[in-house]
């Protein structure tokens, strides 16, 4: 806390006054900093850009240029043969990436909408970071879908454009539902990112000069913080928080229907909807843990906003999600196995013993066993780097899960004569490209918009003042929201 001493006269004392040692309620941040100073801190975290940042930024830019734009352009010019897709794995890593990124994107909505609706207080400092993941993740997911198309330059045919021949898109197709769901989600989540951002943008506007001032002025839509504006903002946010939750659940359910609606062993499963949603949350939580870890250790003043108690709370959530995930995966596989369909039996045998079985076992290990084993331990939950590693493992496991569902399961079908093993080719570069682009967006965003929703933190701090009742310090909760 030493670095904060400039902004925290007495903060340390406040902590000592109000908290028992290792009080888990530290996420309530009962060591308020004056608003002006806190705003300064956030502004400074945006401005403080070291050469390291630019180096990483440069590397990522090169990666994006080569692995994303050049590789994709090359693939468009050459055809899909440069990728590894073939019969029978007509879908490959592109859709793995799509599902993966949509999964990542779920964390944002979950944390910010569900936790907002349920008034989980620990959410406050990192709603923004999670929402950004939603938007940026969806961009990668969308790009991956387009990469996967054989004739991407005609992809606009999926939209119901008026045309002379009265050709409509096919609303029976799960891909069409998918398109609708994802576009709805993109629009909804972007709005939902933007709404709580407005007061912070206004704050930044008031503390900037030059092009940044123009930038924030335009984006802040003239927000001045009047009572009426706040009321409108809260109404809109409440509306969107409730509206986005069903969209969030539906979008991954619909993504799962791309698979579940198909007549393929391993895919045709009615549990896929909730299973995918839980899977998405699982990877999303893991990703949030990683992002919080990176933020806390690379950005200025973040150790004030992001505390180990936040990690602790997140860790509990991750553990709960991994329980549910375990339930769904068990449910899915046991029912498939019990069904006794020949093709499905072959598929399960393939997962169990085939050349990709290592991936299957790693998936179980990373998604279920490791979270089960370690997240019970408070020490692990409260150690940011450990939780970040668990998050990373969960994400690897979830990537494997999608990889198993798409190319590995596609290997096995009803026609054993066609079973062939998929090998990714240019997909590897494009995957690196999407990851680099995601990080690049994130890094750019960390310089442009406050990654900490300052007003929410301040609101929380105002709502939870400490009162002394008898001898105990009690955190009071006012119904501020």
């Amino acid at each position, binding site marked *: 806390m030493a670095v904060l001493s400039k902004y925290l006269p007495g903060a340390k004392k406040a902590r000592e006054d109000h908290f028992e040692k290792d009080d888990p309620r530290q996420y309530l941040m009962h060591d308020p900093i004056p608003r002006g100073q806190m705003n300064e801190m956030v502004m400074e975290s945006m401005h403080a850009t070291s050469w390291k940042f630019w180096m990483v930024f440069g590397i990522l830019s090169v990666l994006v240029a080569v692995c994303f734009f050049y590789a994709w*352009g090359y693939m*468009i*010019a050459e055809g899909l043969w440069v990728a590894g897709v073939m019969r029978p794995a007509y879908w490959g890593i592109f859709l793995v990436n799509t599902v993966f990124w949509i999964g990542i994107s779920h964390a944002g909505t979950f944390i910010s909408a569900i936790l907002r609706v349920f008034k989980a207080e620990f959410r406050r400092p990192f709603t923004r970071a999670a929402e950004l993941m939603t938007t940026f993740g969806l961009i990668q997911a969308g790009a991956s879908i387009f990469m996967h198309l054989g*004739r*991407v*330059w*005609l*992809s*606009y045919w*999926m*939209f*119901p*454009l008026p045309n002379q021949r009265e050709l409509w898109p096919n609303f029976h197709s799960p891909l069409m539902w998918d398109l*609708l769901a994802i*576009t*709805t989600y993109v*629009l909804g989540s972007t709005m939902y990112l933007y709404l709580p951002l407005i007061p912070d943008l206004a704050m930044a506007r008031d503390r900037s000069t030059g092009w940044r001032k123009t930038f924030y002025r335009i984006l802040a839509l003239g927000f001045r913080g009047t009572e009426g504006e706040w009321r409108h903002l809260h109404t809109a946010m409440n509306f969107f928080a409730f509206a986005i939750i069903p969209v969030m659940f539906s979008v991954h359910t619909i993504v799962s229907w791309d698979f579940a609606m198909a007549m393929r062993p391993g895919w045709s499963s009615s549990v896929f909807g909730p299973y995918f949603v839980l899977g998405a949350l699982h990877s999303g939580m893991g990703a949030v843990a990683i992002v919080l870890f990176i933020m806390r250790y690379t950005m200025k003043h973040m150790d004030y906003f992001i505390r180990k108690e936040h990690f602790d709370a997140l860790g509990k959530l991750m553990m709960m999600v991994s329980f549910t995930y375990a339930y769904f995966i068990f449910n899915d596989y046991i029912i498939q196995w019990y069904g006794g369909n020949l093709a499905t039996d*072959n598929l399960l*045998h*393939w997962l169990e*013993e*085939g*050349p990709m079985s290592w991936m299957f076992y790693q998936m179980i290990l990373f998604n279920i066993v490791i979270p089960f084993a370690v997240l019970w331990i408070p020490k692990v939950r409260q150690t940011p780097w450990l939780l970040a590693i668990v998050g990373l493992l969960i994400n690897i496991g979830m990537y494997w899960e999608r990889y198993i569902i798409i190319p590995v399961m596609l*290997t096995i079908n009803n*026609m*054993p*004569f*066609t*079973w*062939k*093993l998929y090998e990714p080719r240019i997909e590897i570069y494009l995957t690196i490209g999407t990851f680099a682009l995601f990080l690049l967006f994130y890094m750019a965003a960390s310089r442009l918009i406050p990654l900490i929703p300052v007003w929410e933190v301040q609101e929380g701090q105002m709502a939870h003042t400490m009162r002394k009742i008898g001898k105990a310090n009690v955190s009071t909760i006012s119904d501020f929201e």
Partner: protein
Amino acid sequence: MSEKITRRNFLKLTTAGAATAAIMTGCGPASRYVTREPYVKMPEYTYNGLSTYYATTCRECAAGCGIIVRTMQGRAIKVEGNPQNPINLGKTCARGQATLHGLYNPDRVENPVRQGRSAPQLSTAQVSWDEAIQTVSDALSKTNASEVAFLMGTAPDHLFDLVSDLTDAIGAPAPLRFSALSMFEARATLSKAAEDLLGQAGLPFFDISNADVVVSFGANFLETWLSPVAYTRGYAKMRRSRPRTRGYMVHFETQMSQTAAKADEWIPLLPGTEGLVALALGKLVAQLRGISAPRAFASVNVQQVVETSGVSMEQLTRVAELIAESHAPIAIPGGQALGQSNGLAAAEAILALNALVDNFGQPGGVSLSPLAPNAGAYHRPANAQEMSDLIAKMKSGKIKVLFIHGVNPLFELPQSFGFAEALHATPTVISFATFPDETALTSDYIFPDHHGLESWGYQRSQTGVMQSVLSGSQPVVAPNYNTRATADVFIEAARLAGGKLAQALPFADEVEFIQSKIENLIARTDGSFIAPEINAFSAYFQQHGGWWASSAESDSLSAANALGKSLNVSSAAASIGENEFFFLPFVSPTLGEAGANKPWLQELPDPTTTVMWNTWVAMNPETARELGIENDDVVRIVSEVGSVEASVYKYPAIHPNAVAMPFGQGHTAYGRFAAGRGANPTDVLAPSFNEAGDLAFAGMKVRIEKTGKQQPLSRLESRIGVYGEGMYEEK
């Protein structure tokens, strides 16, 4: 509610979509299209949008199937079988279908060139056709007749007749017809056996369509053997054309070929014991039928046959019972049984088995194939011995001029024959190749002939049907390149040379020659059509795609001669030592001998292994396990005369002591689709011959060496799904 939002979103998306589309179509490669140029001036006989169909003959092998080529705007579009032609009755094989990839092959010899033996490149030193004809004329007239040699393809076609007339006139040795197919089918052995047992040389016709038990000794009649389309039809009839009777088929062969795969029973045996098995079967059948074993079978010791061949006593007895109880059994001798040191005896033993069940000349039995209507006698293709003799003559400088047409001996003959050196020792080699094959590129001149679909001609059918058939050819498209019919080249060269040569070929052109050869058919009234005079006849001939006798012939052959002969089949299957294997080359069912330059034939999966575009070594998985060899490991097959390398295919249906390898790949030239692809199994074949002069190729002893390299084979099949690799296989 939700519907409303959806629609609103749609409108937003629509705008975004339109913008994206505008960008993306701009960079999409929408402009690359395949262009097909139309006629500049449309010929009178074509209508826009309508196809013109031409009947002609397939030249992909020597069977002489009739085909109808659909053409449109001067382009050949599709090969279809000629339903009237008795050989194939409207059907085709894969090689016939792909003949268009030969016609429009991007690698053809487009101009007459002075090649100057500059292999592997096709020379660009173009010569005019006048010069070319002068060259041929000089070669013919200025060389001593006995020092001229002609080497041609297996098919007995009009060019063979023309060259035969030419050689007759000048007293040169008769043209030799050869191809790898005739070598691997051991046609000379079959025809010699027919001569010995049936009293007349020729290819016997096996009427499997009416047989109820077919016992095949390595006869790959569903693949390439003699007349595969005709025999496939026969097979189908044998199985399904009769009510309540489904013919039963037993196939003796060391590895399971495509034909063996269709048999009800495949019985593996050691190569070289087919004749013994036939004799043992004969003895058992005679016992079962309660007749005293004829002389042919009397001397065989059945127990000993069981020991040498590897066929169990139970199997032998069961097959013998099948034959004995059958009304119409038939035994067929195939190339692998005959291409052995004891091949002739084996062929006779197998034919004698037919004699024993008395099916000669019967429906469902063996007959002599009728001769083509304009043939005086059966002209068998050259056997390997005759090729070897020619090579010896060439090497010793006794051949000054060699004309090569329709055959690629550098590729098709085993290297050990030394054809390369023989070519080197021959002062003038003139090739008439359509494609830049190995032999053509090692010639002095290439005077390219038209592709078969661009040329006139006829082809005599040799077997496959009990009708006398002459298949006719006509150009279905105008020649694509500056090529000329070899017959025309010879006619003009002869005219230029004058004297005896000109007298031998007193024809204006090829067509006149062909007409002179079919003229005598006008008198016949038992044919597919009747015409009063040659022009009308010739027109009908082209229209029908040939001339054939309208009804099947029957011949009465006596079995007495066959059974009276004492047959003594020695076992060719010597014991093999440690790490020694019997080597079984076979002609690739999809590529045939000359299909390697046709990309769609390359892309066709082999029927047994589903390998595409390459050569494999089929090896029993047990053997491979013992040797520590895995699928796709490259092994070197070494014989006393050479070696060849190819990837291993663990083939579950091959005798553990044998390895098999398809013939058809391993070209060093022959166009982009063939060159540098696969390996040629003839590289390890030694020049040893059977009594009929055919190459004893089957079951040659080889060693197998690991190379440590890996070269994956492209298979259509799934190794996971078919062999359980990574899933169900034992680890």
